[in-house]
């Protein structure tokens, strides 16, 4: 029998990540989508979480585990821009905080999808300026967001997870 710990970090690490350095850092450093890592302060404080930093080849991943059980992973390019976010947890995160300047557009796009066809299904917004996906069910949500225009060269959207 396999004892799956579905909320463990392992589910979200790429297999290729063997040997990655992982640090848990207890200071706030966090930004919203499209934001600048130099200004990152607010989100981790709001989420009252702990943060990990996972360096990758062309970007850094910051992971915050919030008190609510939501885990957010933030993808920061070498030039300090948050180009992608991924999250999972029992409940959706504070999307206003995570999406920042994209939040209002996201709300409008989510509303537009909901009226386009009746039915309960994953939220898949593929706007030219930004992408947001949300899926799951109460007690287990997951989602991701990114800005296509600032994906670092060679980075695929599928890496944001």
């Amino acid at each position, binding site marked *: 029998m*396999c004892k799956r710990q579905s909320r463990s970090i392992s589910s979200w690490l790429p297999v290729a990540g063997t*040997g990655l350095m992982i640090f848990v850092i207890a200071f706030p450093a966090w930004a919203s989508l499209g934001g600048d890592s130099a200004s990152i302060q607010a989100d981790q404080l709001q989420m009252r979480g702990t943060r990990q930093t996972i360096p990758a080849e062309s970007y850094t991943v910051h992971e915050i585990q919030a008190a609510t059980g939501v885990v957010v992973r933030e993808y920061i390019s070498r030039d300090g821009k948050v180009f992608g976010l991924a999250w999972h947890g029992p409940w959706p995160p504070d999307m206003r905080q995570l999406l920042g300047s994209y939040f209002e557009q996201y709300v409008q796009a989510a509303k537009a999808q909901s009226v386009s066809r009746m039915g309960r*299904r994953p939220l898949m917004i593929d706007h030219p300026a930004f992408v947001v996906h949300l899926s799951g069910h*109460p007690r287990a949500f997951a989602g991701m967001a990114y800005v296509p225009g600032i994906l670092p060269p060679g980075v695929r959207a599928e890496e944001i997870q």
Partner: protein
Amino acid sequence: MRALRILFIFAILPAFMFLCSCGGGSSRSSSSISPSQTITTSGTNVASISVNGGPLGNYDDAAFASVTVCVPGTSTCQTVDNVLVDTGSSGLRILSSALTVALPQQNASNGNPVFECFPFISGYTWGPVQTADVEIAGEKASSAAVEVIGTNTPVPSGCLDFGLPSSGTLDALGANGILGVGLFAQDCGADCPTTIYYECPSSNCQGISESLAQQVANPVSLFATDNNGVIIELQAVSGGEQPSVSGSLVFGIATQSNNALGGATVYTANPTSGNFTTTYNGTAYPESFIDSGSNGFYFLSSSVSGVPACGGDASGFYCPSSTANISATNQGTNGTSRTVNFSIANADTLFSSNDSALADLGGPSSMSAPYFFDWGLPFFFGRNVFVAIQGQNAPGGTPPYWAY
């Protein structure tokens, strides 16, 4: 925080340390060819359900039931029809616009009325938590907390910040309510964050920690008998689509002569998330689930599944040029596993008809990991699916579980 404090709690944690090996011979496998299905139609624990497009006639692949709510302890009752049957959530929610009976309000200890913002991926429900005797078939949940959706009370920021659309109207919900008969006894659970429940004095709702006993409850868990779960029994769809399909919502598992587990296989679910594992093409996806409230097979991404996605009006669905036959294996946390075969048809073509029961409707569930399978309503066609509630006793395994 006065200064930067850097704590190196971990260093160099190879990812493989976390990986779970799932080999071995403990799993059972067999084909998914279902034996002849028997749908129970009589009994005090049987409610009829129908996949029929719902109250607006525009809802593909959703099952609807009638639910009676009463002022607790009285015969002041109302039957609400067209309530969506949802195994992906727990608790009864009814649109205020569909409700004519005045139910008593749940108040916090300080006397302020309690409200709820409940998030679904398709939208949030916002409204007061009220108390009702909930009656379905011959069963009764006395003084159950229910959510009344749609209210003039302003939505608090903690709810709006989910960024979800409102499901507060008939046009948005496509149903008169949601009957959550999922794996849990309460809707939110022991670690419920303060963004779900609120107390609302005359102005400015404040988030609260709602106790389990006060949370909106799965009414089945409050029944006097037949309270350990449900069976969803829907007819198979012939020819891929039909205008409607009928079936039964049966209460209790192995509590009566008409709800035995029989030959169904039990798949236990993660007790925190309610998920289990689906394996496709050699890769295990441990965040998968069965959900009658999802209106299709939602799984993987187009690039991982190899099934082309639709553009235009059917965006969010799969649109293969010819019907795709898919095989995947479900595995419970108890190690039991079996293969499921299903088909995905072109959603553009499916939507061109007026049929409401579409056996082969599906779409992608995500575009990056964690990929998973959401076994939505089409999974239920022609297959009796048991849902056993956490904390209750049921045969064949420890709930929460599914069996089919």
